């Protein structure tokens, strides 16, 4: 059994597949299939391409037209709707206009008028979603599936590897992990969780054998103005950043669910986030800006997810 690594860039982040196989050609073949899947999703849901589905949705929103979406997008929209319901409105794929306002690259705090204008173009309740048709009741709305597509892509890539016959490996899309399967000898892959003030160092190491591990992190993208830190986690109901953890990591049977849980944990904020994650029941880890670590994820690996088989 040898370890084969395949690295490339997609979805705006560095991606790496680590696959174990006795046959290099088989591993390469699986990696190619998995990469094709990631790139397909990147193209389809990209904000930066004119021919992506997201662009088509934006055009429809501007024209006030109704657009019909395919099954995959419909399932992602249903999933996003479920997250919206579970988070009492904090998770909202229409909040792109708001997050752009608080982007670190702007370098300044947005005015009340700017926030009000963005809020008027935000809100899942303003989207008329009746499978398979999407319509917008307000012009200028934007749907941003970035919060779910990366984790979904990680699961799809892992499945593509399994379908190609590779049973040991891990998919890493910019820090969101999906396991193809444990090491051939049964041992787990180890994922490092970064420390908030020392991005080069690992705060904790989590074992992953099956399923997915997703981390929502804030310290790299926060807006810093006059020594004040404004997180990039915006509450779409008020338009204002939420005071939240520096990072939330969740271990689940799929990267999609792990990602959804970690995002929701962040969105719930410092006060409610940990309680919500506790009642959810999945192993999780919260790290505050000060570096304080809490959660049910056993860093020695006892909570590692086991596959339904093997």
């Amino acid at each position: 059994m040898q370890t084969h690594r395949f690295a490339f860039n997609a979805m705006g982040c560095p991606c790496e597949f680590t696959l174990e196989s006795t046959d290099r050609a088989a591993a390469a073949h699986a990696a190619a299939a998995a990469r094709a899947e990631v790139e397909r999703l990147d193209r389809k849901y990209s904000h930066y391409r004119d021919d992506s589905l997201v662009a088509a949705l934006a055009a429809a929103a501007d024209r006030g037209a109704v657009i019909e979406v395919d099954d995959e997008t419909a399932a992602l929209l249903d999933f996003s709707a479920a997250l919206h319901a579970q988070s009492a409105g904090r998770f909202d794929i229409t909040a792109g206009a708001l997050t752009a306002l608080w982007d670190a690259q702007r370098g300044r705090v947005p005015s009340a008028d700017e926030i009000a204008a963005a809020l008027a173009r935000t809100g899942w309740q303003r989207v008329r979603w009746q499978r398979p048709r999407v319509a917008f009741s307000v012009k200028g709305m934007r749907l941003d599936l970035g919060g779910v597509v990366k984790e979904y892509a990680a699961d799809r890539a892992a499945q593509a590897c399994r379908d190609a016959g590779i049973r040991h490996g891990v998919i890493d899309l910019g820090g969101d992990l999906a396991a193809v399967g444990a090491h051939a000898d049964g041992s787990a892959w180890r994922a490092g969780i970064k420390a908030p003030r020392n991005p080069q160092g690992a705060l904790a190491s989590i074992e992953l054998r099956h399923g997915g591990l997703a981390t929502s992190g804030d310290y790299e993208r926060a807006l810093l103005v006059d020594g004040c830190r404004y997180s990039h986690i915006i509450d779409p109901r008020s338009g204002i950043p939420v005071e939240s953890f520096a990072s939330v990591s969740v271990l689940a049977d799929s990267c999609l669910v792990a990602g959804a849980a970690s995002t929701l944990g962040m969105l719930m904020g410092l006060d409610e986030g940990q309680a919500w994650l506790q009642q959810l029941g999945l192993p999780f880890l919260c790290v505050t800006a000060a570096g304080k670590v809490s959660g049910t994820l056993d860093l020695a690996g006892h909570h590692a997810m086991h596959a339904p088989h093997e």
Partner: protein
Amino acid sequence: MAAQRSLSPSLAALLGAAAALGPAQAQAQTAAENDSRVGYRFNEYGEDGFHGEAVGSKERYKVYSQQFQFDTRVAGGALDVNATHEVMSGSSPWYVAPGPDNRPIQVLSGATIKEHRNELRAAYTLNPGTSSSTTFSASYSDERDYRATAVGAERSFPLSGALTLGAGASFSHDIIEPTDAVLYDRVRHEEKNTGSAFGSLAWVLDKASVVQAGVQLNRSNGYLSDPYKLVSVGADILPDKRPDARTEAAALVRYRHAFMHPDAALHLDYRYAQDSWGVVAHTFDAACYQHFAGGWQLIPGVRYYSQQAARFYQPFFLDGEHRFQTSDYRLGTYGAFSASLNVRKRIAHWELSGGIERYHASTSYGIDGSDAAVPGVLSYTRGFIGVDYSFD
């Protein structure tokens, strides 16, 4: 089936939504269950003593059964192994003699020595917990006078988000070698083959209700009579003789409804069956699974069964020359009510259970009312205690 660690509602909602996004997600739902489970049940079954005119021991049957179960995940699927050990004793109806005024007098066999039965069953399921699962099963049952080997396969197919099709078939080969065959002039060695096929459609009606409709066809060939029973025909006492073929067709409808307040689930089942011997049977089952704080469950249930006699059933025959004859009450016209109450309690990885059932049959309870006597219809009390342990 693996025990279920209860999912928080929010996790269940997320997993449900994610499941629509493909096979990688579907595994997320099944993995929420613990990987393995062992279970044990101790069952006691005791028939009421015989009432009415009888000859022979009036103490009827008593059966003690122990069941063992082991479920686990193996190589991509779920393996389920069951073993049963039964100890049976008591007397059972032998034949019915016409008494003065042709009143039926039940003649019972003498109390038997303890008989043992062992059974082993294994089933392997691919894609367990999904709507496209396939199950292969095999079983073997062994007792002093009867051996049965059976195999079966069933498959489910999702037709749409709300509809699932199920289909399956099974085959069983049984060998009967009655005890004391020479002494009582019984058949020495006989065989019986049974084939069965079924189809079902399950429908998710709304987020709290499901319904399933199914049909089944069974066909048995070979020695289908009861070697231990006799029939009084005219002045003779002849062996129980049934046709060497039997075809049964059945249809079933099952409904499940979940209530939020109170936290409960209602089960309603109805089954209709009719066969080539003239037996027509109706079965109604209702049960309510109620949850209480502290991991307690209370499950009351009722069952009503009604059967119409086989064409060749009579307690006894006054004139001679019949092609087939039986006095076995199990082929007579009668109805039966039963009421049961089960209790379950979850404590961490353990689940304790217990229950009791009281069953009462009578010729006056049948839908197809009949005044004909069916000596031997019985009443029984059944109870069990059980323990299950789930682990990863």
